[in-house]
């Protein structure tokens, strides 16, 4: 039996007093790729941010175990040190902090020990090459002036360098043209190891042409309403979200008009 990595039970999360997640269950084992799909406003980004411990996302119930350990009481840095990683949908820029310094600090922090320059260099150069990123990238300020595609690549670069056990990818495909999408997806595939569990959050099926999930879940109104294999994503692509939402008893219009979360 595969080793259990992440186990979410009955998770409820509020943002500014408004309940967004309404009892979410999900189990991810090492080596598995789970796609979480859902219309806007279904709670996809809330799930990602709450798992990483963003202070604005208030957990109001349920529990989350990572490698068997309850993590909801832990600060984001400790979660990262334990092997969790979030690739942001909208990575923030940090003027004045160079990528090279940021990556080195992060690598040291996650490993909780010094990283020899040689090892850092080799790891960074190899990952830059894998993601077809120019070396000069390292001299730039974190995400400052990056194009949409560069930002997403920088997130995957960090995934490669920090070598986590669980990668939560929040709409890593959004805003990418097809070439950039392919590069990013190839990067993720190359970085996927048997020890890594992936939670792939996406609105569109197209990413799943490049990164193949074993499991597909549909998130709607803060709950997973349907789970299946890759065929579920294909069905969504063909029919849209409406049939499955109707099956669940929801109002399709609401799903479309739902606010972003």
């Amino acid at each position, binding site marked *: 039996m595969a080793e259990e990595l992440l186990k979410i039970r009955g998770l409820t999360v509020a943002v500014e007093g408004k309940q967004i997640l309404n009892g979410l269950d999900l189990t991810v084992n090492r080596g598995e790729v789970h796609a979480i799909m859902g219309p806007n406003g279904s709670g996809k980004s809330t799930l990602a941010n709450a798992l*990483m*411990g*963003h*202070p*604005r996302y208030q957990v109001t119930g349920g529990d989350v175990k990572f490698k068997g350990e309850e993590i909801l009481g832990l*600060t*984001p*840095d400790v*979660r*990262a*040190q334990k092997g969790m*990683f*979030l690739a*942001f949908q909208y*990575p*923030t820029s*940090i*003027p*004045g*902090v*160079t990528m*090279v*310094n*940021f990556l*080195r*600090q*992060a690598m040291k*922090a*996650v490993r909780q020990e010094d990283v020899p*320059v*040689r090892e*850092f*260099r080799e790891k*960074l150069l190899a990952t830059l090459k894998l993601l077809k990123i120019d*070396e*000069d990238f*390292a*001299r730039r*300020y*974190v995400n400052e002036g990056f194009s949409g595609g560069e930002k997403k690549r920088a997130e995957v670069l*960090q995934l490669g360098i*920090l070598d986590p056990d669980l990668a939560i990818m929040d709409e890593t495909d959004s805003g990418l043209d097809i070439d950039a999408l392919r590069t990013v997806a190839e990067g993720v595939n190359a970085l996927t190891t048997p020890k890594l569990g992936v939670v792939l959050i996406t609105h569109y099926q197209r990413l799943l042409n490049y990164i193949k999930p074993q499991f597909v879940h549909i998130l709607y109104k803060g709950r997973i309403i349907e789970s299946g294999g890759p065929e579920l994503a294909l069905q969504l692509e063909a029919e849209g979200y409406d049939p499955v939402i109707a099956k669940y008893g929801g109002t399709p219009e609401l799903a479309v008009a739902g606010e972003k979360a």
Partner: protein
Amino acid sequence: MTSNVLAPGLPGLTDGDVETASKSSPEWVAETRRNAWRTYESMELPDPGDEEWRRTNLREMTFPSARPSQLSVAADSSRNDAIVIADLASSDHADVVKRYFGKTVHAEEWKFVALNAALWSGGKLIHVPAGVEADLPVSLLASGLTDGGAAFPRVLVIAERNSSVRIVDDSSSVGGGFVSSVVEIIVGEGAKVEYYDINRWGDGVLNFKTVRAILGRDAEFVGLAAGIGSKLTKMRFDVEMPEPGARMQLLGVTFGSGKQHFDYNTLQNHVGHHTISDLQFKSALTDESSLVWYGITRINHGATAAEANQTSRNLLLSEHAKAAPIPILEIEAYDVAKCSHGATAGPVEDTELFYLESRGIPKDVAEHMLVEGFFADVIRRIPDEKLREQVLDAVLVKAGGRLESITWDDVLAG
């Protein structure tokens, strides 16, 4: 001693001190000192109704009794043979000093400038002849202010046509005291001057400083105010651009802690056409420290095609820290190329902090990184790398030092 209620002056100083200071001065200097002392005595402290003084009310302050300290200003000049670095009172350079002394910053401007003109000591002349480009910085190190003493540093910089020079004006002391400094900078046609003020006065010092640069045609000026020390700093930093084609940058980096108060008044005065100015002032404030930045950009009638920007960003690292950034635009010209300003004050960005924390970096280290980055983004405008590091080191002492940092070149080489 006078007993003007509004103009009590600094207790402990008398006209006897002017005579003492005059002993080693040529007669013309002694004369300016005596005149300045009379001006000092006759002037009132600034009116808090005046916008520039509203947030630092000197009339409510108690000035401790102070005796003049023997200020010593070490000028590191050995490697710049072509540049004259001399005692301001030296008779060898009397002609040029006489011509420029007190002409850019006038004794009548305000009381403590007059006091400086009366009692300055350790004054320095930096004279760069036409066409001379100093490749190494001139470093002035002011010391000798005793705890409870009074010091009156004075610097006159004359950069002649097509010359260039870089000056670091670094002041430090321990304890309290009173300081009034005046720096006059004349930048000739096509010349370039960089002037870096590093304020590391002792934590009890009341520090008043006026720096004014006047730029010739196509001249260039970079000024930096690094606020680290003192209990109170009131600094006026003005740049005048009467001629066409001049360009200037004013940079500020201040790290306040305890009950420190920093009050900066800046002026970007565009008179000539096609003049360009940019101001970037940043502060990080902890504890109960406070900062005022009152910055005027004036684009006078005739300063056509001028470009100006002023930005003040202030990081409040404690809920009791305060910043009042006040940008003022006065535009008289019809045809301005570009004019922009912005001012902010607030805590570290949550999203930036979370981003770093989500990468395993503990909150305190993440905050420190953000503060370093915040300052580094201004300091990168200093052309000289060594100076950049020196300034960043000096400012970040207040944050408990700098984080270990590495450049990509280091990584590639190491």
